[in-house]
Structures are given as structure tokens and as C-alpha cells.
């Protein structure tokens, strides 16, 4: 084979074909090589998960803001770029920090790592800036989602929301994701604007939603009324809020929702029940911030007087550990309801007609033929508990048929329930001539002014001309209540309260008095008899006699009659012997007295003294001459000593 010469080759058809095949092989080889190179490099650095966000969607020109980029990747990050247009300018170098997180999901360890990048950006020009940051991983550049920032003139930008980006790598789950679908998210879509516990204390709060303490963990219900006192029929506005802890770190599901019980009220909704209730503000309770949602608002009209209860609303929270629910319940409220004041109450006022009413009335036509009908339209409008029926004026010759009622009721200004009700009556006039329809009046009580007023519509008259169809028989027109007695035209005479015998306690006593009197009488007689007996017995006792004898002796010795004194001294001594020794010495000879007394236990000296005294007394009594009273007194003195001794002995 001849060597190939460089220069212009000598080509043949066969040689050209071979050359073309070689070139083709070379191109395909190069292509395969490139593909192989790309695949291997790509395997070395898998595409990262990127998420970009800014701390404010709207900024004033000249203002700084931050763009956060979170890149989750296992590859080596070799470069980051802001990727901004001419509306903004990057300030300084971005701050880059790495993060790592480990989660166990379904028993499998999942590891993540990456970088968090923060760009400081200056809003340079008014308009809309689009920023699409990029990350270079393993030599390959990847773009994140584009974020737009509206740049407005100075002073027109809203207050800056606190840092919405989790600076620690987003390890915390979305705290509000559990409420989505049932109660929504108080800050909208968390992907666009994630919430984190950092910076919570900077969230503006409303003091009117603040409570002393949270009523539950994570979330709770709170109910409130606008007034604790009302009259029957007065609107009480009930609001029920759901509080959601913004630092809640777990998902929640709700079930078993029970609405409030308001059986003593007529209930009218002031807002629609929606699965995504309105966020009305934030509340600071303790050191935590709670999002507050208004989930129910209703007007309640009390049906009766008393302390009426509003039962709680409740819901169950499904626990993550199982199907057991944790219950949350709003407060049980009470409204003190009274009758509207009786003073100034107009005639015809119906309890419950409370609010502010107006009424207009029209009658068409004003002239009809006999037997014809007229249409009366009454429009009752206002706020409050509008009556659902009107009692038409009952006049002779005017037959009101059942009305047709239409209503347009709903919440009005300042949460006042109201609207209008239109009553259309067909009125049959059964007499000829000018028939007065009269006034339709609805008295009402205005709770704002605390006064009564009357909504009145004057219907005027209708002229009924002769002719036309014959008057219908009105169902046979038989009087359902025949022969009613005549009207009384004067009031009855004033009546003083009648006295009743049974009202006096003394009457009931008097009933028993005759029998009781007899009992008292018989008892007294028996008592008297018994007393007499006792006195008699008492008087016959030796002690009593002794006392008596001593008193007689004292008296006799005080006088001048010595014989009488000696006789009484002797009687006293004899009685004292009976009491002291138990023996009667009256029938015993004087000289035997001492011996008898000794036998009966009296000491001998005393017995001798007694005998001597008795002997002296006897001698003095029967002496032919009057004795000396001084001697008798001296004798009584000795006799008393003996008596005293006998008593003791």
C-alpha cells in the first residue's frame, strides 16, 4: 500500500465514500462524547431545589429590601447571582450560609442540606422589578423562581411586614396549613409569604381582641355580645371568633362543629357562614400573637324576659396521635332581658316590637263598584325586630283577606338587622258609600332613645259606588257569636279590698277559744283544789307548829302577862321535844320528863334543864299570885337555848 501523500489528495469515487463515512463516524463520536460528558457532570451535581422570596412586595424608591434564596442541594455551590433588572441594584456581596436538616419520614431518614443566600437590594427606579437569582452548582448554573417587586414613590409604600423568611432553613412546617380549607390561612398562601415565629412580636395587634388568657392551646373559640341587658325584642349582636396561635407548630383538623344554641332568641345571621372566614385582626395574649377570625356574627332577638342563656359553639380538634378529639368551646353567655317599660306604652303595643320602624301604605283603586275589591299595600321598613304580621284595622263593612307578604331583610349599617316587609291585602268592601279604611299603626319601642313611637300609615277612604257584582254571601254570613250582651259604657265603681275573717290570726285562735277556755277553767279548778290540800298539809307539820309556838312565846314574853308567857314557853318546849326527840311529854308527869327524854336520846343535862323549865312554868302558871314577867323572859331565854339544843341534837 502506498503511503498517502499530503497535499491535494487524489480521490476516487470509492475513496470519497470512505472519507465521508469516516467524517460521519467522527461527528457521531464527538456527539456521544459530549452527551456522555454532560450526563456524567449532571449526575455529579443534581439540580437543586430553589426558592426565592423578598421581604416586601412593594417598596419605596431608594428603599432597601432583602431577597432570600434557599437552595437545597448536595452539590458544591460555586456561585450565586441576583439576576436583577435595571430597576434595582445589589448592595454589597450576598451573605451565604449553609444548612443541614434531618427528618425521619415513615421510618426513613431523609437528609437535606444546602445554602441560604441573602441579597441586599436597593430599589433604584419606580416600576416593577423582576429578580431571578441563580445558583451555580457543580459548574452548572440553575435559576430560581422569579420574584417581582413593585417600586413606588416614597411615602406610598405600605409598612414593611416583618421578616417572612425562615432564616434557619425552613425547618418549621407551615403553622397554618391545617386551617386551610376549613378556616383558611390568615396570611394567604404560605408559599408566597411564609410565616415563622421570628419577628412575631412586630405584628400589629388590636387591643379589642385581647383576652386575659388564651382559652386553649393552639386555637380556641371566643364569644361576645354587644350588650348584657336588653328588652324583649331588642337586637343583641353575638360574635364568635376563632383565635389561632401564629406560633402553632403542627397541623390541625377539625370535626364535630356545633353551632351556638339560642333557643330563647329569634336568630338572624349578620354574615354568611363561609369555610374561609374573615381575618379581623391579631391579638396579643400573654407573649403570643393570635390571628383572630370572625366565624359567626348574628342578631339575636330575645323572646321572653329573664336571664337568657346563649349556649357555646364547639368544635373538635383531631389529635395527630389518633382519632380522639380535643374539644374547643366558646363561652356560655347570659343576657338579662326585661319587658320594655310600661310607662308611656302606646295602645296596641305588642311585646317584642323593638327597633325603629316606618310604614307607608297605598290603596288602589280609590273608587270601586259595589262588590269590588281594593288592594292595600303596606310597606313596613326599618331596623330591629320588624313584626311579621300586621293586624289590619277592623271596621264595619271592610273585609280584609289574608295578606301576601314579601320581605327583604338582612344586615344593615352598624350590624343592625333590618330591611322591609311588604304586605299586600285584598280588601272587600261590603257597604256602599265612602268607606273609611282608617289608620294602620304599629307601636314600637326604640331601644336607642328608650322611648315608644308609632309607625303609622293612613289609608284614607274608598268610594264604593252602586252597581257591579252582587255581594258575596261571605260563607253564609251566619253570626258565629249571636246574642252577645250589651256594651258597658261606664267603669265599675271602685272597690275597697274585702276583709276576710280568715286573714286575722285571732280568728283561728278564737276557733279554739271555747274548748281551750273550758280546759283552762277545769285545770284552774283542779289546781286550786290541789293547792288548798297542800296548805293544809303544810300547816299540820311539827316544824311549822314549832315555829308558830316560838313566835307565840316571843310575843307573849314581850307582853306583861307572865302567866300567858309561861304557858306559851311550856307549849314551845313541848313542841320542840316532839320535833327534836320525837316524843310528846304533855301526858307525862313533870318529874318523869327527864327520864323519858334521856330514853329518847336527849343528853341528860339538857333533859334535866327541860324538866326544870317545864316545872317552873307549871308552877308559875298555877301560882296564886301573878308572876314576874322579867322572870318569864329570863325563863324563855333558857328555854330557847334548850329548843336550839333539841333541834341540833
Amino acid at each position, binding site marked *: 500500500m502506498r503511503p498517502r501523500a499530503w497535499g491535494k489528495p487524489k480521490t476516487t469515487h470509492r475513496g470519497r465514500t470512505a472519507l465521508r463515512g469516516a467524517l460521519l463516524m467522527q461527528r457521531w463520536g464527538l456527539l456521544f462524547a459530549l452527551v456522555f460528558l454532560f450526563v456524567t457532570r449532571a449526575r455529579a451535581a443534581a439540580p437543586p431545589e430553589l426558592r426565592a422570596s423578598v421581604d416586601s412586595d412593594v417598596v419605596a424608591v431608594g428603599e432597601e429590601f432583602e431577597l432570600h434564596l434557599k437552595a437545597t442541594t448536595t452539590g458544591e455551590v460555586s456561585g450565586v447571582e441576583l439576576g436583577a433588572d435595571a430597576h434595582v441594584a445589589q448592595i454589597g456581596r450576598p451573605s451565604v450560609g449553609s444548612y443541614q436538616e434531618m427528618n425521619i419520614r415513615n421510618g426513613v431518614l431523609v437528609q437535606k442540606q444546602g445554602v441560604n443566600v441573602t441579597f441586599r437590594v436597593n430599589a433604584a427606579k419606580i416600576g416593577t422589578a423582576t429578580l431571578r437569582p441563580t445558583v451555580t452548582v457543580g459548574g452548572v448554573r440553575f435559576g430560581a423562581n422569579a420574584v417581582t417587586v413593585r417600586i413606588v414613590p416614597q411615602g406610598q409604600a405600605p409598612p414593611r411586614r416583618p421578616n417572612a423568611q425562615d432564616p434557619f432553613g425552613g425547618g418549621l412546617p407551615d403553622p397554618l396549613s391545617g386551617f386551610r380549607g376549613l378556616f383558611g390561612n390568615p396570611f394567604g398562601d404560605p408559599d408566597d409569604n411564609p410565616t415563622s415565629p421570628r419577628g412575631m412580636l412586630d405584628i400589629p395587634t388590636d387591643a379589642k381582641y385581647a383576652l386575659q388568657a388564651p382559652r386553649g392551646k393552639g386555637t380556641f373559640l371566643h364569644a361576645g355580645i354587644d350588650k348584657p341587658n336588653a328588652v324583649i325584642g331588642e337586637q343583641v349582636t353575638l360574635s364568635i371568633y376563632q383565635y389561632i396561635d401564629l406560633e402553632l407548630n403542627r397541623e390541625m383538623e377539625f370535626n364535630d362543629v356545633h353551632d351556638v344554641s339560642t333557643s330563647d332568641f329569634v336568630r338572624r345571621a349578620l354574615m354568611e357562614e363561609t369555610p374561609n372566614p374573615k381575618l379581623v385582626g391579631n391579638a396579643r395574649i400573654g407573649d403570643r400573637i393570635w390571628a383572630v377570625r370572625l366565624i359567626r356574627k348574628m342578631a339575636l332577638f330575645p323572646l321572653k324576659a329573664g336571664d337568657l342563656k346563649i349556649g357555646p359553639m364547639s368544635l373538635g380538634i383531631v389529635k395527630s396521635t389518633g382519632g380522639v378529639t380535643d374539644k374547643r368551646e366558646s363561652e356560655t353567655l347570659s343576657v338579662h332581658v326585661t319587658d320594655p317599660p310600661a310607662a308611656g306604652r302606646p295602645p296596641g303595643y305588642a311585646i317584642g316590637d323593638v327597633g325603629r320602624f316606618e310604614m307607608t301604605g297605598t290603596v288602589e283603586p280609590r273608587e270601586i263598584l259595589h262588590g269590588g275589591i281594593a288592594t292595600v299595600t303596606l310597606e313596613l321598613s326599618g331596623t330591629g325586630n320588624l313584626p311579621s304580621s300586621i293586624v289590619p*284595622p277592623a271596621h264595619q263593612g271592610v273585609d280584609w283577606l289574608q295578606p301576601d307578604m314579601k320581605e327583604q331583610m338582612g344586615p344593615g349599617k352598624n350590624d343592625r338587622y333590618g330591611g322591609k316587609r311588604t304586605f299586600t291585602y285584598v280588601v272587600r268592601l261590603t257597604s256602599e258609600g265612602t268607606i273609611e279604611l282608617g289608620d294602620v299603626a304599629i307601636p314600637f319601642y326604640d331601644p336607642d332613645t328608650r322611648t315608644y313611637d308609632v309607625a303609622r300609615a293612613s289609608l284614607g277612604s274608598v268610594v264604593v259606588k252602586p252597581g257591579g257584582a252582587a255581594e258575596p254571601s261571605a260563607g253564609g254570613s251566619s253570626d258565629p257569636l249571636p246574642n252577645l250582651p250589651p256594651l258597658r259604657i261606664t267603669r265599675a265603681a271602685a272597690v275597697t279590698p274585702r276583709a*276576710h275573717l280568715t286573714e286575722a290570726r285571732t280568728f283561728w285562735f278564737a276557733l279554739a277559744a271555747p274548748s281551750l277556755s273550758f280546759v283552762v277553767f277545769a285545770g284552774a279548778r283542779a289546781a286550786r283544789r290541789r293547792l288548798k290540800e297542800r296548805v293544809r298539809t303544810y300547816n299540820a307539820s311539827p316544824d311549822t307548829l314549832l315555829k308558830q309556838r316560838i313566835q307565840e312565846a316571843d310575843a307573849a314574853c314581850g307582853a306583861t302577862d307572865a302567866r300567858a308567857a309561861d304557858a306559851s314557853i311550856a307549849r314551845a318546849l313541848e313542841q320542840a321535844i316532839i320535833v327534836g326527840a320525837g316524843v310528846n311529854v304533855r301526858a307525862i308527869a313533870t318529874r318523869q320528863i327527864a327520864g323519858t327524854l334521856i330514853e329518847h336520846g336527849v343528853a341528860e343535862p339538857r333533859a334535866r334543864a327541860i324538866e326544870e323549865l317545864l316545872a317552873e312554868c307549871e308552877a308559875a302558871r298555877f301560882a296564886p299570885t301573878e308572876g314576874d314577867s322579867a322572870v318569864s323572859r329570863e325563863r324563855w331565854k333558857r328555854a330557847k337555848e334548850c329548843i336550839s339544843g333539841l333541834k341540833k341534837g
Partner: protein
Amino acid sequence: MRVIVLFVAFVLALTLVGRRAHAEVPAAPAATENVDADFAHASEALAGGRAGDAIALFEALADRGVVDENVSFDRGLAYAERVRMGAEQPGDLGRAAHGFEEARSLAQSKALERDAVSALGAIRTEVARRRARSGTGTEVEPNPSVGELIVRLASEDAWAVAAALASLIAGIGLYVRAEATRRRMKISGSTAFAVAAPLCVAFALLAWTARENRLTMREAVVVNPNARPLDARGIALPNANPLPEGARLRTLNVSTGSTEIQWGALHAWVPSAAVRAIARRE
């Protein structure tokens, strides 16, 4: 004999003391000064065929606490007139019956009482006719119990006087029995005591019951054409017909929104708005 005289004097003295003590009860406060004028307007409206206006005025008088048998009577007439005019509102028959029942209770004259009873008859006949037509029974007035009938035989004061007399006779009988020396007198005394003492107890019980009825018994009239008897939980009693409109019944207990009633043998609860209490002169 002297003892008997003393007994009688004693009882009479006690009775007089009791009457004087009771007569010192202050009279009811006078109604407002415009009552007569309002009554006149109401009567004019009723006489002029304006039953609705008359009802409003009569009800206003009732709201102001006017207790007058003629006002009650005319109020009943006003409601009845509205029924007759074909402008009947639900409950008009019951309210008419209430006015007449109230007039009957308050009546001082036999004529008014007679008229009220006559009007009540007309109202209840109409109610019975309507109930018969709707198939809910025609009973509008239940029979009173035997006890009630006996108590109503005489007035409270009549029972009280009878009890006092029986007591006096019993006392005299006792005394005669104890003091008489003749056997015949002793037997007379014993017999008088044996008869009069139980009678005294019975009359006293009747007087006491009549007094309790007067003080504690509250009556009302059904003013709702469809007042269903309920149990204490507010659930309709099974197989119980609605109470007849205009029926007079006894109220035992009034709680928030519900009233416990007794109507004949029926013991039930009804919504408070379905009954209207009969005013009493107190």
C-alpha cells in the same frame, strides 16, 4: 249561764279585733287619671264598629294595671266583635273568653256576672263547634273535682263563720257536760260537743282551703287556638289534643317561657304566651 255568756263575748271580741286588723289593709293604688277617658274612647270605638282600635285601647288599659270588671267585659266584647266582623285574628276567641272570665271573677253585680256567663257560653259554643269540625274533641270545660265543688258551695267567710259557731257550740257542750248535775244535761252537753267539734274542724279546713285558693291559686285562659300540652321538657304529650281556646285553667308554676297548668285531670306545661292570667283585685 254566766260562763256561756263569757264564751260568746270572748269569741265576738276576737272576731271584731280580727276584722279591724284586716280592714287596715291599704287600698289598691288608684289607676292613672286618664283611665276614664281612655275607657270612654275605647267604648266609642267599639260602639262605632272599630273593634281593632277598641282592642288596642282596652289592652293599653290592661297594660296599665287597670282591674275593672266592665273594662274586662268590654275587652271581651271587642275581641268577640272582631270575630263577628270577619276580621278575626288567631286567638281572638280566647282573648274574648279571657275578658269575660275576668269580668265574671271580678263582678260585683249579678247582672254583669250573668252577662259574662252568657257571653262565655256563646264563645265556648263556637270553640266547641270549630273543634268538632276539626275533630279535636268538643270538651271546653272540664268537670271540677268533688273537693273543689264542696269548697265552692259557700264563700270563704261563710265557712269561717260556720267554723266559729261550731267551735262555740262545742265549747258550751263541754262546759255543760262538766258542770251539769242532771244526767239529761250531761248527755246534751256530750252530744253537742261530739257533733260540733268535728264540724268545727271540717268547716275550718274548708275555710282554710278557700283562703289558700284565694291567695295562691292563679287561673288563666287559653288564648291560643293551638296550645298543645307539653311535658316538663317541652315535648308535646302523646295523644293529647290541643287545649281548647278560651278554656279556663289553673296555673301552678310559671317559669321562663313555660307555664305549668292543670285543666281538669290534665297536668301539663304550655308555652306562657298561650295562656293569659286572669287579673285579680288585690
